[in-house]
């Protein structure tokens, strides 16, 4: 029994020491001048000395002047991703939090009493010479990746506008068969850039909300409202929309898609946004498409599935030259896993598109889910790989 224990001990202690050395290197002795932020947390306030710092190693000095234990968070622009946090700041104590923050928008949050969403405020990290992103040698790779991705999003957005125009025309004219055929194709362009489209918090619920996700009292509009009207078979006691109502919903969708297209033209990206977007698209697959929840009425989930995967792969492939320098093993794994997933999707391709979700066997769904999970895990390391 000595040998297995020895092996186990070595296996488990090695990462610990690896983590230590890595950190020492990370800090690299960068000074925190101009990037020192003091935070004072009380029971009902969260005072942050500045809401804007240049990119680089930012130091938050968190002091708790309240009576309860507090926590301090730096959250990503979605308000969910934890960029950094310090927990267990007791009353009258100060703690330091050191973050390598790239340029972007963030939220700060104090959480007195350790529950709830915390007291939040906007926080901005501006571009500077000390970005923890990439070395000058790689700058060209980065520029190319950013330009390509921006072009891809704009192109998809253009096609989305064109296809949606055609779709609403057919739908308004009552040409339901043709509209049903076009529906998943038009949505493909939306799904390929879904993480970008979703970043506009006002447009996304109006365009892509599902009936099941509506808040009480919220009005249901957008793609899925029309979807139900085109595929009412599953609905109980469903009253079809009148031509007038159809026109209202169709015009509203078109208006929102046009607004999206206008906004997308002006967007700039960073490598970590692309990497996170790629991961986000795969998460969309796992949460909605592989479960058949997204296209509840039409069962055209696999179209969306493929489109999300397309978007994720384009994001990854743009970054691949960078990843191949920082983490060649990861680049290789991702390439293989994307191919494995695509093989499963190809098997479901038909002359007109894909198998409908309700025609898939439980085993096929399971295989797809497994392939998605196998891809998600390495994909979650992509951001770290492009920033290292």
């Amino acid at each position, binding site marked *: *029994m*000595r040998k297995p*224990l*020895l092996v*186990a*001990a070595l296996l*488990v*202690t090695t*990462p*610990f020491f690896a*983590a*230590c050395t*890595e*950190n*020492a290197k*990370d*800090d690299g*002795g960068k000074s925190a001048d101009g990037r020192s932020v003091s935070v004072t947390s009380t029971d009902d306030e969260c005072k942050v000395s500045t809401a804007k710092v240049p990119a680089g190693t930012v*130091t938050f000095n968190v002091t708790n002047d309240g*009576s*309860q*234990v507090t926590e301090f968070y730096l959250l990503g622009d979605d308000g*969910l*991703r*934890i*960029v*950094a*946090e*310090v*927990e*267990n*700041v*007791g*009353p*009258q*104590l*100060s*703690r*330091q*939090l*050191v*973050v*390598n923050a790239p340029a972007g928008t963030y939220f700060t949050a104090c959480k007195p*009493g*350790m*529950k*709830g969403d915390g007291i939040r405020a906007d926080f901005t990290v501006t571009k500077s010479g000390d970005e923890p992103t990439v070395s000058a040698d790689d700058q060209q790779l980065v520029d190319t990746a950013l330009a390509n991705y921006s072009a891809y999003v704009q192109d998809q957005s253009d096609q989305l506008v064109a296809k949606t125009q055609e779709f609403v025309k057919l739908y308004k004219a009552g040409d339901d068969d043709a509209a049903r055929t076009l529906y998943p194709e038009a949505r493909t362009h939306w799904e390929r850039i879904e993480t970008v489209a979703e970043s506009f918090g006002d447009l996304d619920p109006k365009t892509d909300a599902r009936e099941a996700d509506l808040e009480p009292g919220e009005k249901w509009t957008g793609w899925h409202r029309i979807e139900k009207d085109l595929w009412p078979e599953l609905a109980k006691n469903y009253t079809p929309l009148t031509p007038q109502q159809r026109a209202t919903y169709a015009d509203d969708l078109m208006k929102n898609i046009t607004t999206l297209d206008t906004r997308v033209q002006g967007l700039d990206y960073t490598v970590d946004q692309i990497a996170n977007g790629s991961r986000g698209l795969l*998460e969309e697959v796992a949460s909605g498409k592989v479960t058949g929840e997204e296209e509840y009425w039409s069962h055209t989930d696999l179209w969306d599935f493929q489109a999300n995967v397309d978007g994720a792969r384009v994001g990854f492939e743009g970054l691949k030259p960078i990843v191949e320098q920082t983490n060649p093993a990861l680049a290789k794994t991702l390439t293989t896993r994307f191919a494995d997933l695509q093989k499963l999707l190809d098997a479901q391709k038909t002359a007109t598109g894909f198998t409908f979700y309700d025609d898939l066997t439980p085993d096929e769904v399971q295989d797809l889910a497994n392939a998605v999970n196998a891809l*998600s895990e390495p994909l*979650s390391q992509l*951001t*770290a790989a492009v920033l290292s």
Partner: protein
Amino acid sequence: MLANYLIGLREGLEAALVVSILVAYLVKTKRRGLLPRIWFGVAIAVLVSLGFGFALFYGPRGLTFEAQETIGGTLSIVAVVFVTWMIFWMARAARSLSGELRGQIDDAAEGPWWGLVLVAIFAVGREGLETALFLWSATEAVSRDTDSTWQPLVGAALGIVTAVVLAYLLYRGAISINLSTFFTWTGGFLILVAGGVLSYGVHDLQEAGVLPGLHRLAWDVSDTIDPTTWYATLLKGIFNFSPATTVLEATVWVLYVVPVMFLFVRGARRRTSPPAPAPVHS
């Protein structure tokens, strides 16, 4: 003061529980000779934590958030591996200890000498860095402003002392029960503790972004169980119970506790059941 006390209590309990049961085990099986190994491990963990904490708090360089979370999460998972090993090591040793063999076990047969040292190091070191950072910041608060800010350090210290007292009481209780009861209860208890440590480690890695699903909550009872209360502190300190638990944490907990508990209970049954009658040829 109370808030800092509760932090000390929680962190202290997390560190002291496993150690107290391990000590009770060695004392019960009359192997006090092995105790120095435990104290050696505890001392290493405390010194390393305090040293690291001092260096990070007063030194020119801090530890980045990612590194802190990764170290904490990894150590938690390593600690689970060791505690699980320990539970079954205790159970196996118990089998050979039945009857007159008790107390005559050759130390050398108990696995490498550093096995126990490592268990102690990980049990205490897991929360050590975080606690040390807390204590140093409390020390600084005291020296920064001497008129009234002695409370945080005293609060935290009293919390740790309470944790040690609780652990000692647990040890006394464990000492007074008979050996097979001891294994069944402490073993089962440690599996629950280890399950909590594991899901806590998973949560750390989720926060660090290494694992996904930070916002997919299985339940959120933080309105019913206020995290600042003493009972939430005890639940967290003993079982690492979090009022807001993610789906992944809950899943990992079940995947660990159910099979390990099954194997453990099966082993315990075998130990306590009377010898089976000799098989009869049919």
